[in-house]
């Protein structure tokens, strides 16, 4: 087995409220390891801590304890501008909401251009050419370079966000609910694009999602998070085909599909889940 490219060890993060009982431990002693070139899906409902985990790994949040290693190197727990810049060449993030992931007052090219400016020595003309290349890689045309976000569809905007993530030539991309806000057909296109990019560039994905059908399409391995802890982990086939933990079973049972009817006991299990 090769060395993991993302290695997270005993990561804990508590958000403190004004009173101690308002404190929430969003991530509780979580450890994960992702092999290079694979895709790990982190699933769980809202509030399970999966997004916080992703934000700690990219450097948007500071963990209380635990370590994050990217490409074998431990990253600084408290990020500053310099360490963030170095980290960004290793890991990039695609955010959930295509509405807000681009500045509505600027041409979309600027979003990609500023990443190139931060990480490459290219001049303006070379950057423009590189933007065009990146746009082609994500299935956009050159004419989209000068569009403003309002002129693009949600799927196109998400493609721009992917191009922005690719601009720094990272080896890892964190996708935080990256297809959740898209129509199912557009979802499928974006997932296909992501899969192709992963294969052609040898990228590693950390895919945060609540949608199990998405997991099936893209992930090699899955971890299931619940209230800050990992309750189950394994290959996608294992976890989705033969879930061991009752919470995973519940998640699978609740996934909507044609002809879905709650099994006896599911509603009660949900009630207990909500009450607990």
């Amino acid at each position, binding site marked *: 087995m090769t060395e993991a490219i993302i290695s997270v060890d005993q990561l804990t993060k508590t958000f403190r409220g004004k009173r101690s009982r308002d404190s929430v431990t969003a991530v509780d002693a979580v450890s994960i390891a992702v092999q290079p070139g694979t895709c790990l899906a982190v699933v769980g409902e809202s509030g399970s801590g999966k997004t916080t985990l992703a934000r700690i790994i990219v450097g948007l949040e500071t963990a209380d304890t635990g370590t994050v290693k990217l490409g074998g190197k431990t990253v600084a727990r408290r990020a500053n501008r310099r360490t963030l810049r170095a*980290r960004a060449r290793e890991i990039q993030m695609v955010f959930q*909401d295509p509405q807000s992931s681009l500045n509505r007052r600027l041409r979309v090219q600027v979003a990609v251009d500023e990443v190139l400016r*931060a990480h490459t020595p290219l001049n303006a003309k070379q950057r423009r050419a590189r933007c065009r290349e990146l746009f082609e890689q994500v299935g956009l045309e050159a004419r989209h370079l000068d569009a403003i976000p309002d002129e693009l569809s949600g799927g196109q905007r998400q493609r721009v966000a992917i191009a922005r993530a690719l601009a*720094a030539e990272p080896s890892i991309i964190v996708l935080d609910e990256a297809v959740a806000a898209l129509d199912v057909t557009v979802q499928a296109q974006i997932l296909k694009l992501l899969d192709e990019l992963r294969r052609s560039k040898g990228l590693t994905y950390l895919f945060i999602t609540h949608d199990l059908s998405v997991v099936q399409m893209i992930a090699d391995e899955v971890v299931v998070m619940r209230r800050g802890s990992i309750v189950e982990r394994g290959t996608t086939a294992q976890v989705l085909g033969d879930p061991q933990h009752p919470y995973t079973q519940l998640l699978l049972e609740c996934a909507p599909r044609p002809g879905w009817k709650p099994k006896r006991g599911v509603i009660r299990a949900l009630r207990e889940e909500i009450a607990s």
Partner: protein
Amino acid sequence: MKALAKRLGPIGVGAAFIFAIVVVGALLAPLIAPYDPTIGSVTQRFQGPSLDHLFGTDQAGRDIFSRILWGARSSLVGPLIVVAVTGVLGTGIALTSVWWGGAVDSAISRVLDLLFAFPNLLLAMLAIAVFGPSLTTAALALSISYIPYTARVIRSMALRERNLAYVRSPQLQGISGAVITARHLVPNVAPLIITGATINFGFAMIEIAALSFLGLAVQPPLADWGLMVSNGQQSLLKGYPAESMLAGLFIVLTVASLGYIGERLGGRAAAGRRS
């Protein structure tokens, strides 16, 4: 130009027209004012409107039309200082506060709360008591008391924008806060800055007029609308309302038109964001 007219609507275009006349009048006062605004003739006191004196004359025999024109200058310059200082400092403070968050944000917010507690005019009078009455003192003092209003409104909007991905993503690239703020945050809170400025302009105009009325800002014999309202009081009682009423009318027209323009532009900008 057409797009702007559409955004303003018919009433807005009228308002813009009125405001433009006031600005042009102020700029061209030395050229178009028929008389010196500060020199009168006792024999010409309290004349009614005529071809010689369009708006008549005041108790010192000065031409009211000329005084309105010259008065537009100080009446516009004062609020302009207030709007510029408040806009720059208020926005700067708000965005600094939002960018750093945490302790910096709390500290700045507490200082703003403290400033909030001072009534505007009281702060202005305090400054005038210390530095002596003048338009600049009054305008700067008002600017300081307006900063918390501007800063608080912009802070609340910037706080929302701060966490959106278009701001977070450049932050992850290690791009400096100043660059991200200037490139991404400022253009996105700009509609609010502009609306705030037009509203502040109106308030500042009225409050500076009030200070001039009290004899604390613009000093006689200079022409100023607030001062004219105050000067005209005695004539008003004698049955010559022209000076007070005309100056008052211009204050109201200017403030109302600018307020309407601001509301149209800001309201439209806000609506655009929702769509």
